[in-house]
């Protein structure tokens, strides 16, 4: 009796597993079909768009509609890439920004995609989406902006440092790193300096805290800056700067109206000629 129940249970589980496997395979085939349908649909839209693009005059509205259709039908691609490759690496509040950047990348890919090459659009778009998202992450995520080429170079420097450390058994010098990655030493120094200055700290952050374990509160950055500035400012320096200003004003007044106007606009003091004449008057 017991044996019979066991065998019936095993039959049930095997039938269940077969059923679930069949369901999964069905889902997979369905997904593959939808993906292939989407690819065909996108290619059709691109062909239509290129046909319309050759007409004179160009039907701008229809082209725009087709472009929007391509964007809407392929937006899942952006979501997929961002969710799979980036969402775990960045804070959750940044992910919507990455979707936006990815969409911009896809729009760029649409404008540059060539149907005659015989490649699927998604293959081409993925590169642009990654490019836009990576550029965003490199340039926008820090409060101090660093050129993306220096951040990329810094990544290379880090990898080279690891390799050379293993090779030499000591910390490599900058010259060695530079020759290893085939870049000038100055560029390597610049990249290290640029990336190290990206980190920022709060003005209220307490530093110089006593190490003796007493209850001294330490000095925050704001107070220390203030103190440093006050140290430098004396009656003498104030008079000096006032004298400098008066001398500067005298020299500035010797310039022609045209020179004064252009310098003022150049340095953003006034935004237009009218504003300049409203402040200084026409007869100078």
């Amino acid at each position, binding site marked *: 009796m017991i044996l019979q129940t066991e065998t019936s249970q095993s039959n049930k589980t095997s039938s269940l597993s077969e059923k679930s496997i069949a369901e999964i395979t069905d889902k997979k085939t369905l997904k593959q079909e939808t993906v292939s349908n989407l690819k065909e649909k996108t290619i059709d839209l691109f062909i239509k768009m290129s046909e319309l693009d050759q007409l004179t005059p160009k039907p701008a509205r229809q082209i725009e509609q087709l472009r929007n259709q391509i964007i809407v039908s392929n937006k899942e691609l952006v979501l997929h890439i961002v969710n799979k490759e980036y969402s775990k690496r960045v804070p959750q509040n940044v992910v919507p920004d990455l979707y936006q950047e990815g969409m911009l990348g896809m729009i760029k890919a649409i404008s540059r995609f060539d149907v005659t090459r015989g490649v699927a659009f998604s293959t081409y778009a993925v590169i642009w989406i990654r490019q836009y998202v990576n550029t965003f992450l490199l340039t926008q995520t820090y409060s101090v902006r660093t050129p993306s080429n220096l951040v990329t170079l810094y990544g290379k420097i880090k990898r080279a440092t690891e390799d050379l450390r293993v090779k030499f058994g000591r910390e490599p010098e900058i010259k060695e790193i530079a020759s290893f990655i085939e870049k000038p030493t*100055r*560029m390597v120094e*610049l990249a290290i300096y640029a990336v190290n200055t990206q980190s920022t700290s709060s003005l209220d952050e307490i530093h110089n805290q006593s190490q003796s374990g007493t209850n001294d509160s330490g000095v925050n950055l704001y107070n220390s800056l203030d103190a440093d500035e006050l140290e430098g400012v004396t009656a003498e320096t104030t008079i000096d700067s006032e004298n*400098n*200003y008066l*001398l*500067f*004003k*005298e*020299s*500035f007044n*010797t*310039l022609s109206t*045209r*020179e*004064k*106007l*252009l*310098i*003022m*606009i*150049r*340095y*953003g*003091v*006034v*935004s*237009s*000629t*009218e504003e300049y004449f409203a*402040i*200084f008057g026409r007869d100078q």
Partner: protein
Amino acid sequence: MNEVYSKKEYVTVEDGVDFRTIAKEVTLNGFPMNHATARNIVFEGIKTIASDLYEKNTSSVPSEEKLNEIVNSRYFQESLPDFLFKICEESLAKKKTEPKL
């Protein structure tokens, strides 16, 4: 990279306007010129100020090299907009206190 840029005479400002925009703006308002002329006028003006200040402070005429050094120096470049804003503020304040006819 910095060495290459520092040899050029261009001045980089954050709030300012580029020379093409300046040229367009002043051309429309009675000072016809192109961007190169605008650039030359601005540089000449700045050099005149620097040279004048140098003469007043040291009672000697600066060499072209010295003048370039002063114009490109960080101190000069930082204090220039401050003084310009101050001149502007003074002029505005003066206008407010002037009696209207």
